[in-house]
Structures are given as C-alpha cells and as structure tokens.
C-alpha cells in the first residue's frame, strides 16, 4: 500500500484530509522507476477548485497515455496545512506518488486567473523550489506556466522557466522529447531551455529583457541569443474532434465545484464581445463533431459514475449541432438517471423547451448577461443582446413557469455614463413588469418573481479591443455600484429585485496584473513574503498589505490601471501573437468608441487575423 506524505496526526488535524491523499478513481499510478519523465500538473488553488478544471484533466490524461511519462497532480494546500507544512518543513508532494514535487522533472502550473499569483509562489516555496527561475539549479524541476494568463506572462515571468502559449495538446510531446534528448546528451538546464525556446509556442522569459522609456512604458525587448524568436505564436489544435480527450477523468472523493462529466463541445467563439479575452484568445471557433461527443458522453458517464453531465463552451447556443446533441443526451441521460446542466445558453423558445425537459422549472433560474444597462453601451461592447430579445425571452420563460431571473452586468465599461448605469435598474424593472403582465395573478406559483442583478467591475484585458482603455479607480467603481443600487431602489418593482456587487479592491489589483509588465513581479514577491495568499478568497485578501508593497516597491497602481494607452504604445504582451492582430483590435477599439457594432464571424468575417491558421470554417482563409 502507498505511504502517505502526511502523518495520520497531520491529516486528522486538517480540514478535508481527502484533499491530500490522492487515490481517486481514475487517478493514474505508475512505477516511478520505469518512466523517463516525471511531471506534476498544478492548479494553484484549493483542491475543490483545481479538480474542477477541464484543462488539467485533458493534459493529465494525455501525458499519462504516453508510456514513458507519469503525470501527477498537486493543488494549493489550504491555509491550515500550509501552516503545518511550513512549521514541520514538509515538502510539497504530488498526490499520486506522495513523493516530493522537487524530485520531479517538470512542474506545470495552469494559470487561469490573475488572483492566484501568490499561490504560485506558495507552490514553489512549499515545494522547496527557488522562487526565481534564474536561481534554479540543475536538479530542480523545470517550471512551466500555461493557461490564459500566460498570454501576458510578464508580471510573473521571473518565476517561470517556460511559458507554454496556447492550447496544451500540441507541443508537449515535442517539449518532452527535447528534454529527453538534452538529458541523453548530458546537456544542462540552460541547454534544454535554449533548445525549448526554439519550439513553437514556447517562451523562455529569462532569455529576454524588457526595456522601458523614461515614462515607464515599454520601449522594446532585448534577447540574449540571436537564434531565439522575437515573436511567440500561440499553439492551437487544428482538429478538435480528433485531438485527445479525457474519457476517464479523475473522480474526486469530496464534493468539488464541477462534480460532473464535462463535454467540451467547441473551442473559440464567433461573437467578438469587446471586453472578453477568451473570445479573442481562442479564435477561430472550432466545433467538435456531435457523433464523437455522443460516444464521449456515454464512455465518460460509464467511467466515472457521475450523475450529471454538462456542456462546456463560451457560447453553447452557437454550436451548430446543438439540437442533435441535446436530443441524444436528453434521451440517453433520462434512461440512466443522469442530470444535464446547460450553462451559457441564449434564452429563446428552443433553449426554454430544452431546459424545461432537463431541469425543475420551479427551482431553476434563467440567466441573462446583458453586461451593460443601455443599448448604446451594449453596442460599444459589441454585446448583441437587445432589450427586446431579453424581454421576449423572459416573457416566454414566465409563461413556462420560471420565476427566477439572474442578470449579469459590468460597471466601469469604456464610455459609460450615469444614463447607462440607470439602465440596469430600468431593465431589471421591465423584466419584473413583464412577469406581472404575462402571468395572471391566479397562476403565479410562488406569487412573485425574483430578479437578481449582479455587477462586476470591468477590467481591461490584453488582446481585447479594450486593452487601450482606462480602468476605473476603486472610488469610481464604488460610486457606480452605489448609483446602480439607487437606480434599482427607485424602480416600481424594486421589491422583486435584489442587487449584488463585488468588492472593488481585488478588481483594481487584478487590473494591475492583467496589463502589468515585468516590474510587477517584485510586488507580487514582496506581498507573498508578507503573507498574502489565496487572494481570490475575499476572507484572505489583504488589500492594505498589497498597497504597502506597491508603495515600497515604488510602483504606481494608476500607471497600470487608470492610464488610457496611446494607440502606438508597445504593450508588454505585444511579442505574443495570439492570432488576432493588433490592427484588428485597434480597429475594434475605434469602432467601440464610435458605438459601432461588428457582426459576428458567422455573419461576416471581420478579418481579425486568426484566419491565417486555416482552421476556422467561418474564416474562409481570409487574413
């Protein structure tokens, strides 16, 4: 029987010891002596969040399919175990073998959101790996970063040996082969990194230096070796139907956020909402064949025993084979007593019909994401949803028995006025009114309608048309939230409307990290040293420490957040080519300011640049 890394005594002291014992169904155990490469895949947050992430399941399954590789998993030890590990000097361990991470060849960290940056340092620190890549010796694992935040890797560049830019399925074999060849030839760590830097999608930050103008903006980059590339182009899967898919995902013992089979139906999105980073990064849209998905659904349900299945994509309603797939799932799942959950569906007659078949109408709620309160501002952000469509959808739903509606908005979008903010209350009110109009008194099931409007604060992200935009200050954000609240209170149906908003401090910090440069690393390191960890958990977020660290490191938050960028400014992430061109993004930025919408890819190609990959059905090979 496997020995556990933690003693019984420690495991009995921490909350949810199941987070640390591995042994889950479908987790892969190999003989460590008989593989050539030991890999640990990490999601730098608590187990329940990390285990819910599809990307890790994909890479874990793909790497383990290769006989010469053993891929294991590790997540952030929760604060209770974190303390014990530091006190007792227990090295961070991989879940499967329970062996120290520091003994592995690679540590791959998926970086899904900016607020996990201090958790990355925790992982390295507990693993007893030097935090700075430049200080790592020959026997230390190669630390690789991937995921959406790797598209602006500069704020965390100092901590990684390699960033893998783009979809993970394509280059890992080449990267590992490169590692094995280097080892066979007795090459050093640096030799390997030099070789790796020549692979598509692979970025080795320590071989580049960021140069600045006197005003602090980026002047350019200097590279250490002539032969390494100036631009790193993202990797993407050409055929998403044929690419590896994890048919035996790991099944956790404890309840996790995503405790279900996840079917990724497509990558990319045709919509082009101007605030959305994913919509640009994953272009062009690529659909997975419905017949293949049916096979996957059956196999995955059988291999996991999950009682729920969910579709995953940025906009499921745009999947062209949705009818066919859903017909199959509804039939098959009802026979197997499996629930279907359907996120990201546009509300219309079709989706309401489907939803009424798969969920308890009385208990479930409808979700609309208008993102902005007025049509004018929705045109600015290129969100195609109109008030008419929302009200029609809501009325249809109310007729069908739904009584709960969730609305998502953003505050602080470019060009936003008080008028736009008031629109949030108006729209919420109109939806409530639609309920009272459509549903006669005697048919009101719970007697009332419940509308929950939530706002988040807009954070400009790299590789979006809003990468040039000014972000609001904390005070501006809070004023806007207050105005929203007042706008809702003034409504006739205000009793039916509930309003939620986020805290603003963390949004400001996220704004710095999102568009930060290499100098930001010093602040992250300092904040971590002063105890910041789990910053995405509001109860552990210490804004005062962060502010002090910025001050002590001599960095101005406003430089990164509230400064509107000039059209010709060089961004820290410009050396990465994510497919869409800067010219396209600038064009969209100008159209946004003029309030002009752009049709979606299916209506009319906008020539974003991603067409050159030659894989998008919509792209028609256009550049």
């Amino acid at each position, binding site marked *: 029987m496997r020995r556990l890394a933690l003693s019984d005594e420690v495991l009995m002291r921490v909350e949810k010891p199941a987070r640390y014992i591995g*042994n889950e169904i479908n987790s892969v155990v190999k003989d460590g002596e008989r593989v050539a490469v030991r890999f640990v895949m990490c999601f730098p947050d608590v187990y329940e969040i990390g285990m819910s992430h599809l990307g890790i399941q994909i890479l874990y399954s793909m790497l383990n399919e290769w006989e010469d590789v053993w891929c294991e998993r590790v997540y952030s030890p929760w604060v209770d175990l974190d303390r014990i590990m530091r006190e007792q000097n227990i090295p961070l361990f991989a879940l499967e073998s329970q062996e120290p991470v520091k003994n592995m060849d690679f540590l791959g960290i998926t970086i899904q959101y900016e607020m996990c940056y201090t958790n990355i340092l925790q992982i390295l620190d507990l693993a007893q790996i030097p935090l700075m890549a430049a200080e790592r010796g020959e026997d230390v694992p190669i630390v690789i970063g991937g995921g959406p935040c790797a598209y602006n890797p500069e704020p965390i560049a100092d901590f990684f040996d390699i960033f893998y830019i783009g979809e993970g399925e394509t280059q890992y074999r080449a990267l590992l082969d490169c590692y094995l060849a280097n080892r066979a030839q007795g090459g050093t760590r640096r030799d390997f990194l030099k070789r790796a830097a020549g692979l598509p999608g692979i970025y080795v930050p320590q071989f580049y230096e960021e140069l600045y103008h006197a005003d602090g903006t980026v002047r350019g980059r200097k590279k250490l070796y002539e032969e390494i590339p100036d631009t790193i182009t993202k990797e993407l899967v050409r055929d998403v139907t044929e690419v590896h898919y994890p048919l035996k995902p790991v099944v956790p013992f404890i309840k996790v956020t995503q405790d279900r089979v996840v079917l990724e139906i497509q990558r990319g999105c045709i919509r082009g909402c101007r605030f959305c980073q994913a919509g640009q990064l994953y272009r062009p849209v690529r659909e997975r064949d419905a017949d293949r998905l049916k096979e996957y659904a059956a196999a995955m349900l059988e291999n996991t*025993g999950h009682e729920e299945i969910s579709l995953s994509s940025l906009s499921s309603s745009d999947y062209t084979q949705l009818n066919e797939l859903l017909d199959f799932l509804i039939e098959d799942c009802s026979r197997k007593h499996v629930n279907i959950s359907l996120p990201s569906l546009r509300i219309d007659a079709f989706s309401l019909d489907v939803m009424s078949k798969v969920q308890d109408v009385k208990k479930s709620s409808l979700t609309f994401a208008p993102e902005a309160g007025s049509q004018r501002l929705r045109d600015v952000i290129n969100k195609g949803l109109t008030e008419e469509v929302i009200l029609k959808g809501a009325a249809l739903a109310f007729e069908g028995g739904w009584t709960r509606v969730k609305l998502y908005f953003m505050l602080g979008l470019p060009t936003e006025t008080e008028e736009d903010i008031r629109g949030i209350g108006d729209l919420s009110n109109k939806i409530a009114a639609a309920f009272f109009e459509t549903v006669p008194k005697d048919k009101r099931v719970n007697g009332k309608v419940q509308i929950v409007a939530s706002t988040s604060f807009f954070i400009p992200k790299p590789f979006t048309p809003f990468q040039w935009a000014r972000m609001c200050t904390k005070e501006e954000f809070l004023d806007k939230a207050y105005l929203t609240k007042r706008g809702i209170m003034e409504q006739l149906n205000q009793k039916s409307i509930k309003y939620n908003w986020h805290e603003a401090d963390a949004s400001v910090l996220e704004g710095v990290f999102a568009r930060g440069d290499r100098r930001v690393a010093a602040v992250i390191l300092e904040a971590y040293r002063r105890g910041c960890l789990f910053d995405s958990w509001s109860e552990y977020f210490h804004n005062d420490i962060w502010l002090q660290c910025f001050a002590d490191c001599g960095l101005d938050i406003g430089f990164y957040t509230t400064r509107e960028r000039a059209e010709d400014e060089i961004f820290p992430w410009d050396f990465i080519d994510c497919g869409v061109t800067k010219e396209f993004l600038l064009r969209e930025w100008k159209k946004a300011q003029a309030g002009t919408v752009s049709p979606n890819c299916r209506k009319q190609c906008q020539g974003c640049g991603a067409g050159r990959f030659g894989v998008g059905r919509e792209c028609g090979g256009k550049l």
Partner: protein
Amino acid sequence: MKVRIKFAKYGAMKFIGHLDMMRYFQKAVRRARIDIRYSEGFSPHQIMSFAAPLGVGIESYGEYMDIEVLSMTSAEDMRLALDRVMAEGVEILSVNVMPDTVKNAMASVAAAAYRIRRKSEDARTAVAYGGEDAGGGAAEGFQIANLNEKLQAFLAQEHILYTKETKKNVLELDLKPGIYELTAEPDGAVRMLVNASSGGNVKPMTVMEQFFVFAGADIPQTACQVIRLETYADMAKEGEAHRFVPLAEMGKYI
C-alpha cells in the same frame, strides 16, 4: 430485491468521511452497472442506505450498506462487479440477497466489535489489518503489563463513569452497560464488543481513554488506531439477553 453489501475501508480511505463514502458508492454502483432501483419524482435518487457511520480516521472490515435492485445475476457477480470499480482501500467483502422481511441495516445495528492498536512510530498510514502488509505483532500492542487482567478489573467495576460535555450541558454517563466484551489480543492490542445502536452507541476511544486512566497508562489518542471488525444485529429471542449476529447473516435467522 434487497441486497446487503459488506465492505472494508482502510489505508488512505479511512480519511474519507461518511457523506463522501455515500457519494463514492453512488458513483461506484453506476460504474459497476448495477441495476439499482431509483426513487420516483423529479430528481430520482438511488435506493441505498448505510448501516452505521464510521468516523474519519477509523478503519473497518465490517461496513454495511443496503441497496435495492431491479435485477441481478448472482450475488457473487455483483460482488465482483463492484469490487472491480473500487478505489484502493475499499474492498467488497460479501454481497447477500436479503429476505424482504429483514429489517434494514441501519435500523438493525446493535453492536460492533473493534480492535484498538497502537500506531507504529512512523505510521504514515495504517496497514491493512491481516493483509500481507500487516505490521508485526508486538509493534501494534500497547505494551501495558498484564493487559488482560487490567481490562477485566476495569470491566469488573460496578460503574464506569465519565463526563460528556455537550453544547448545552455536562452529563455524567455510565459506560459499563454498553461494554459487552473487553479483552487483550495476543499482540497486546485491545478488542472490544460494544453497543453501537443509535440509542446507546459507545465510542471505542471513550472506553480506551477511561481504561488508560484506570491503568495509569499515558497514551495519547493520536497514538491509537481504531479498527471496526464487525457490525452486529441483536437477534435475541424472548428471554435471551443478547444474540449478536453479523448484519450479513441476519437472513439466516428469519
């Protein structure tokens, strides 16, 4: 058809709590393609119930759950099908089709047998009881001289009183009526048979703590590994005090 499944839970699996074990088995039953019966209604659930919850950290070779199935080939087929989809540390020990008249496992629980041993100094995780990895005898004993005599003297007391603090008040309770047997094992560990019914459940470590005080042994709780060996129903006839029968065998007594 009512089916009673007996399983063992040890090693790393002792850290999986009761509710998570229920979720684990719900998924396992699906993986094993067992034709389990579902309840009616909008969100049907499997007809499945567990005998006696096991605390986190305790190992067991006598866990039970009842399920209802619509069809099955044989008990042994089902045992194999389930055992094939288990995680390391959970074993399906037996599957028995029960007469419809038998009381369900949860309502039947009357007593449980436990072994309490000392964890070896470097115990990372407990080794399987009786399995090939089982630790060598003496290392698991408590090294208390004349252990059995002391246990008998302890049990011979008229009352074994202890105070239990609940949120509301402090209770003075007597353990004695709930302890049916208490003996030393050849390797120096302790074996006990105690009340495990919902009304009078006796926690083995509560007994051990009182005993350690009685015997003047300074052994911390964290040094003890509790292992549940079997769970029993009481099939006593009129006039009999007790007749403890493993839950798996209840069918024979009807």
